[in-house]
């Protein structure tokens, strides 16, 4: 190597060393400390005013203050975290050892971001708490009348049985019906075209139509048609038909995406063993398609459970309709809150489960 090249390399190395200095994140830790301090004050103020209000309302003093102490203590811990971050930062600045200083700086930054995000969460909770108690606690009285919630629970849960029934029957029908539509949509060749077209029209139509309108039209329309059998089904049956038609269209799209995600070479391989188109579908394509679509199918399933509440519009006494009746008898919406709670309790675990499935799938793909 000639001299000028060697000099250039030395120059390059010096530049790198000059640039990669230790970062102590002093400003960040200060910002974090201020934010957490403000949050602490906000939490304390919120707790004091809510506690005073509750005591005024006749709650006993001791427990209210003890309960109030918990959020205050937690937000103080966050302040302490920010202080620790500031200490790391100052140590990083004064440390003579570069690698150690970098490690301290990184710790300071991470701790600061953590306390900031906790603070934001606390502030959001404070805002919600204020929302509940302002205007003489109008919000909590309207939606969270504990007494009414407890009293209405049994009746509403019984009516929820109707939702469960409608859900269970339509879920099974949808799974089958949607597969039929999906296969119709993927039929190959010229011969398949008419059926393909019909299937496309069907799924466009029912995906475009709001579910509530489909339910309304079927629930009130079919009885007026005077068609044998169809005219005098129960309102549950109309609800099931309507939901199956609507969700069949959505779910067929999920299936179709699954079918089309299987590589065409799999079709070639199966067909070249002499398997017919339908056997290829049945033994090779659909089994592979189904694996990837379980999460989206579950999402549809959750959404179907919620939409069983739409049947209230055709007079089915489901949980929602029942709670509306109770609500209007008591001039208070808390009975409807009961239904809301039931739906949330049922769907949240499923949503978590779907997330887990997706996560598991992803990690499998990462490792494999």
């Amino acid at each position, binding site marked *: 190597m000639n001299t000028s090249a060697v000099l250039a390399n030395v120059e390059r190395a010096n530049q790198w060393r000059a640039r990669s200095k230790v970062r102590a994140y002093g400003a960040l830790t200060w910002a974090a400390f201020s934010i957490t301090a403000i949050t602490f004050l906000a939490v304390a103020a919120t707790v004091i005013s809510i506690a005073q209000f509750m005591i005024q309302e006749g709650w006993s003093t001791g427990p209210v203050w003890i309960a109030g102490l918990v959020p205050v203590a937690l937000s103080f811990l966050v302040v302490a975290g920010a202080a620790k971050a500031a200490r790391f930062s100052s140590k990083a600045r004064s440390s003579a050892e570069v690698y150690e200083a970098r490690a301290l700086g990184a710790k300071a930054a991470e701790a600061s971001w953590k306390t900031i995000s906790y603070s934001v969460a606390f502030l959001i909770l404070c805002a919600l708490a204020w929302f509940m108690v302002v205007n003489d606690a109008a919000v909590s009285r309207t939606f969270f009348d504990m007494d009414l919630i407890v009293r209405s629970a049994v009746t509403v849960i019984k009516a929820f049985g109707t939702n469960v029934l409608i859900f269970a029957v339509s879920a099974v029908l949808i799974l089958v019906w949607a597969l039929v539509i999906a296969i119709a949509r993927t039929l190959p060749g010229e011969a398949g075209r008419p059926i393909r077209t019909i299937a496309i029209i069907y799924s466009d139509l029912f995906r475009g139509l709001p579910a509530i309108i489909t339910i309304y039209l079927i629930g009130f329309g079919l009885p007026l048609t005077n068609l044998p059998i169809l005219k005098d089904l129960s309102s549950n049956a109309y609800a099931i038909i309507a939901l199956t038609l609507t969700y069949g269209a959505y779910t067929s799209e999920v299936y179709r995406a699954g079918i089309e995600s299987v590589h065409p070479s799999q079709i070639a*391989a*199966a*067909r*070249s063993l002499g*398997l017919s188109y339908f056997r290829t579908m049945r033994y090779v394509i659909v*089994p592979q398609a189904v694996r990837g679509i379980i999460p989206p199918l579950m999402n549809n399933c959750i959404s179907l459970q919620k939409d069983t509440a739409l049947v209230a519009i055709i007079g089915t006494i489901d949980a929602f309709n029942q709670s509306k009746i109770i609500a209007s008898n008591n001039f208070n919406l808390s009975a409807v809150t009961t239904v809301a709670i039931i739906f949330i309790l049922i769907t949240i675990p499923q949503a978590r489960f779907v997330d887990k499935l997706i996560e598991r799938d992803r990690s499998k793909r990462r490792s494999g």
Partner: protein
Amino acid sequence: MALVEIDKAYKHYGSVSVLNGLSLNIEEHQVVCLIGPSGCGKSTLLRCINRLETIQKGEIRLHGDRITGPGVDLDVLRREIGIVFQGYNLFPHMSVIENITLGPLKVLGMDRSEARDKGMALLSRIGLAHKADEFPDRLSGGQQQRVAIVRALMMDPALLLLDEITSALDPELVSEVLDIVRDLAAKGMTMVLATHEMGFAREVADKVCFLQEGVVYEEGPPSQIFGNPQGERTKAFLKRIIDAGRL
């Protein structure tokens, strides 16, 4: 009469013409190797023979019976003509034994134990009996390709088409796959191979066809094609191969 007669076959995709009046005979018990530059239509020709693709002009006959044109029962045709692809295309949701018995069970209507026995016998022949219940993604590329060959053999085809079956494999896995082909050739299996393995083509082929611009530019025994090629293009192609150290 040859087992397969290809008579002036034409095939184009849109404006790209791939086969330009290609004619070729494949005799019973013959091993025919197709060689030629990438994109010359080797895969297309194989896919046309078992009707995964359809030629637009000309005809192809199997046992003297025309198999192009309308009204041919493709599912029956494909029992007679097996194909193995470059990318193995095993079914990932089935174990090895399920992969290879699917055809016999569902297409030939063989009963379960008979299909399993036959499958196990073929797997032992290629030394993979212990992998019968594994899933394809737990097998090496070479093992997967050997299973793919067995899957095609399970249907007792009259003709086996092999499309660059070693080109996705690491060099050390190539020989285990080629050993099977050699074994099949010795047993009299009629095969058509599209291949870039010139050394192997030279060793195993009864007839080598050099494809160029959609026709068989030159065909003959390996000694002629590799030792004393007649056409200018064949010579140029072989020179490139030899310069690249592949022969």
